[in-house]
């Protein structure tokens, strides 16, 4: 238990009769970037709210830093920074004032507000009313608010929502820096596998309130077997030829043939083989399974 920043043990949560989270056992190791992956409505935000004690969990099911959350709420929250859904920002206050308000609540120095503004690149907009901010700027301010108390654990609910590609890269780099240089633990939720793959060291996949997969990013890669898609002329004879050559054909349409991807070298060999035998290969590329297919895969194996 000591090695986990977050641990839930068979967590169940209902809104009325509707079960939102079912038997969820999260294990977020200290110092990891934990990608919390799932489609909209899977229970990600609910789980994050439970981790913040905004929604009351049954006792002895949720532990942060090894402590039970309901009986250690304040002590735990002191070590956590969070961005939940839309950032919670007072529209009538400026960006700086929003951060100063947070400083007042947390009893920290007001100079920290300017540091945070610089960190998320809002120094120029510091004195602009937050209601006039763009979605991306609000998101940055939300992240600044989450970081202001220098917490050990960060809970970020879709932090790249509404950001432009530049902003997404900045947030990504910031997360990596926080985890590697400052030894922070970050739980980041997303519905985009590609987004999580780039930053996370660990992944948890949730669907309909159930955890379908949990492990390191490499373990996930083993599950999400990449495929090689080949677009070739004379498709019928090409497929017979490929099968004869000892490859397993996963799928075939009237335009392309899909075989399991092994390595770049093997792909090249197959390409050469096809060309040497008189086929015209118009395209040959590695295709990763998208999240939906991965879900199907994982649910099947479970």
């Amino acid at each position, binding site marked *: 238990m000591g090695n986990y920043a977050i641990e839930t043990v068979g967590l169940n949560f209902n809104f009325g009769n509707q079960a939102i989270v079912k038997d969820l056992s999260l294990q977020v190791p200290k110092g990891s970037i934990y990608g919390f992956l799932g489609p909209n409505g899977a229970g990600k935000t609910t789980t994050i709210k439970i981790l913040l*004690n*905004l929604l009351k969990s049954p006792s002895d099911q949720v532990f942060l830093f090894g402590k039970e959350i309901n009986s250690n709420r304040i002590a735990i929250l002191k070590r*956590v920074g*969070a961005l*939940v*859904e839309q950032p919670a920002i007072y529209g009538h206050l400026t960006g700086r004032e929003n951060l100063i308000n947070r400083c*007042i609540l947390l009893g920290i120095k007001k100079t920290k507000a300017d540091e945070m503004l610089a960190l998320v690149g809002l120094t120029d907009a510091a004195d602009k009313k937050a209601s006039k901010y763009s979605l991306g700027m609000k998101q940055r301010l939300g992240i600044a608010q989450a970081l202001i108390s220098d917490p050990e654990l960060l809970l970020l609910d879709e932090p790249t929502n509404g950001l432009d590609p530049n902003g997404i890269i900045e947030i990504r780099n910031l997360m990596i820096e926080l985890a590697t240089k400052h030894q922070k633990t970050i739980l980041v939720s997303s519905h985009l596998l590609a987004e999580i793959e780039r930053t996370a060291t660990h992944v948890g996949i949730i669907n309909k309130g159930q955890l379908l997969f949990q492990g390191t990013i490499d373990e996930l890669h083993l599950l999400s077997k990449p495929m090689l898609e080949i677009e070739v002329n004379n498709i019928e004879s090409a497929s017979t030829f490929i099968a004869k050559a000892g490859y397993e054909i996963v799928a075939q349409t009237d335009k392309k043939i899909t075989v399991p991807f092994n390595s770049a070298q093997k792909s090249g060999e197959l390409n050469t083989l096809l060309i040497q035998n008189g086929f015209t290969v118009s395209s040959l590329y590695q295709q990763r399974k998208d999240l939906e297919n991965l879900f199907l895969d994982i649910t099947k194996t479970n």
Partner: protein
Amino acid sequence: MRTLYISLKSEFYKSRKTLAFWAAILLPVIICGLISFGFYSESEKVIAAHNPPVILWAKYSGAALGVMGFLIMPFYVIFMAFSVNNIEHKNDTWKMLFAQPLNKFAIYAAKYLYAVFLIFLCLFLFASLTFAFGHLLQVLVPKFNFNQYNPLSFLINAYAKLFLSALGILSFQFILSLLWSDFLKPMGIGFVGTIMGIITANIGWKYAYLIPYSLPALALKITKVKKGTDPLDFPIFTQEIWTSLIYAAILFIIGYFIVTKKSIK
């Protein structure tokens, strides 16, 4: 206690640029200013009536107390209860507030106390400005006899009563505004309640004191003046005030349980 203090400080910081805060200052300035201007421009008529100083003060301060007690006060309280909560509803910041490492009761109590403070500030300014402007009128129009009676204890008594009698409404409206994020529900209920309060207080219904909305009006009714005594000298802690305080205390506690059970979706 520290949590309560920083929560209060944060409430002030958040609201200092909002209408709710400035209303507490502007309302007394505007109303007292208008009444004083009226007395100044109609000074000859007022002097011609040859009022003794007590009656002059009673008429002058009664002008502000009258509108306050019957109409503005309930609505002002409804508005304050709404705006203190609305600042969180509107910005969707309840979740942020309750995710802070702060005691939930302190957060709730600070909000409530801040609304109480805004009402206190408003009434305190009413009393002070009535006193100050009365003496200013005396300087501007020396023929007035404002300087021959000291209205301080009357003003303190009257506004203290008004303040205490409003706490029942405040607690009730505070819960409504806590539950609902829109303006119309608490305002609508408050409006109906206020009208009901005014009617029941005016017709002198036996149980009018059980309706929180009628308490400010009831509290300011000066009943039975004994001959020979100062008509402006009356007790503060009457039945209406006790009722208001009991309502306030009970509803404050209920409000806290609502806050702790409030699911932040």
